């Protein structure tokens, strides 16, 4: 697996010569999916530290230009879908089929896709943490809040509700059984796992994910997903305007220059979710 943007570019060019897709990543008519790889380029290209300062308003968005431009260029090269015009048209299942059949090298996705990985690839595929693209960027995991479960302040019996949540989430054996059954590990992540917590029946790829996620994020090595840490309009702009760039309706300059005014307006009006400090 390459560990720099240049390494990926060399690999993708070589794959294209053999008519193999570098990445199986398309939006299937849902432009919001584009933010998965926007987030990868921002975190792994600029580094989580630089992105943290940008989200805090301490660095201008213009400094993210090389990473946003690289993302757009890779899609335009057809490295995400084989042909640029397929980028808007293929579904996730078709993407996984390409990976499973060897027509694509890899797929940029999140932990929610681990179940599909097992379904389509069986034992032929494995995962790695999103590799670094920029100099000095180390291994990290992007944090996201996909869902949250809370106890209502008006609950008549908050202690009982808490007991139910404890029952669901704090029992390692039960959580491990759910992981094995569903191959979906995202919602049990807050538990600190060790390899010994799992029986031999649990998919070793899940075990490796959960143990390394605990270790890596526990050391403060994490990045920031756009859908959790960016203000909503800025987030919306990032992936919608990317489609305009891909359709040659907007230049990369106009795309990048368009972020700052939206971000400034939003953060001054409503503030942003304070990102956790690394």
């Amino acid at each position, binding site marked *: 697996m390459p560990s720099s943007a240049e390494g990926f570019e060399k690999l993708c060019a070589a794959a294209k010569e053999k008519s193999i897709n570098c990445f199986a990543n398309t939006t299937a008519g849902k*432009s*919001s999916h584009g933010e998965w790889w926007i987030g990868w380029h921002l975190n792994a290209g600029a580094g989580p530290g630089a992105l943290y300062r940008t989200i805090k308003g301490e660095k201008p968005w213009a400094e993210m230009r090389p990473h946003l431009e690289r993302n757009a260029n890779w899609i335009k090269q057809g490295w995400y879908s084989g042909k640029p*015009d397929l980028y*808007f*048209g*293929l579904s996730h299942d078709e993407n996984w089929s390409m990976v499973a059949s060897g027509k694509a090298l890899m797929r940029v996705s999140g932990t929610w896709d681990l179940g599909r990985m097992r379904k389509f690839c069986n034992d032929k595929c494995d995962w790695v943490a999103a590799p670094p693209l920029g100099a000095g960027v180390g291994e990290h995991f992007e944090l996201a809040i996909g869902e949250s479960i809370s106890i209502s302040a008006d609950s008549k019996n908050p202690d009982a509700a808490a007991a139910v949540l404890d029952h669901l989430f704090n029992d390692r054996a039960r959580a491990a059984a759910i992981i094995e059954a569903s191959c979906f590990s995202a919602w049990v992540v807050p538990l600190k796992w060790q390899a010994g917590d799992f029986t031999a029946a649990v998919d070793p790829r899940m075990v490796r994910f959960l143990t390394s996620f605990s270790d890596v994020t526990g050391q403060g090595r994490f990045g920031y997903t756009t859908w959790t840490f960016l203000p*909503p309009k800025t987030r*919306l702009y990032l992936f919608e305007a990317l*489609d305009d760039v891909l359709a040659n309706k907007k230049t990369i300059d106009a795309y990048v220059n368009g972020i700052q005014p939206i971000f400034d307006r939003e953060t001054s009006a409503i503030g942003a979710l304070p990102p956790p400090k690394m």
Partner: protein
Amino acid sequence: MIATRQLIVYVTPLLLLQLAVIVGPALLNIGFAFTQWRGFDRPVFNGIENFERLFADSVFWLALGHNIQWTLFFLTVPIFMALVGAFLVSRLRRGQMIFRILYFIPYIVAPTVNAEIWRYILNPLHGIGAQLERHLGWGWANVGFFTDRDLVLWSIANVDNWHWWGFLFVLYLTAMQSVSRDLYDAAKVDGATAWEQFRHVTVPGIRPTLFYTLMITLSGSFLIFDYVWILTEGGPARGSEVLGSYMYKQAIYGFEMGYSAAIALGMTAIAAAFSLVFVAARRWGAEV
């Protein structure tokens, strides 16, 4: 004769339901359109700010243009197809039921299923065009119906039309069967061609049904959301952005409930204006 009290008893539950699910939310929407509101905080009155922004919003105008094109498509193509189809089938002595069933089936299939069927048929990797390209070398046949921003709106309109025109066909066919055969016989005696029979007997005979279908097509098509959202979410690059999809994105992705309420209000006002023009034209004697 039903007594007034009985009428009130029968009508009140429906009226209450209507107030709860239609009038109440509609009034709330009007109120929210004049606020800045993210959906989970307290709405703050901001006067006509949302509407000023709406007029300056290029995406709103782009989406409105798409809505108008979409509406014009549905006021012409499916109605023409259904009228011609129903007229031809009405002249059959046997086998009408087969056509009724075949053309009506898409209407009872859920929009998501319809959309998925067409997504597979037109899929750029596995669809019919892709197969023709792969096996016969016909690259021209593999068109990016849902990926080309110049084609996408019309492609989605055709998917929607596939389910809609069959419904109109059944309505027109039923209406045509109520037109007296004597009128057609008299027209034939006078030497009327099939077109002249259609023009001077069929169309006047089904005018109430025609007007009704034009009205429901007008209101339904201008408020389009489902097929666009299922197939493209308004993309690629806003090629199929309509007011409904834009409003949804502003509300759900952008947390701008106040602004999206203003879009909804603008959309409703425009649809109502079109409908009023239509009703007025009819009242002034236009043949619709």
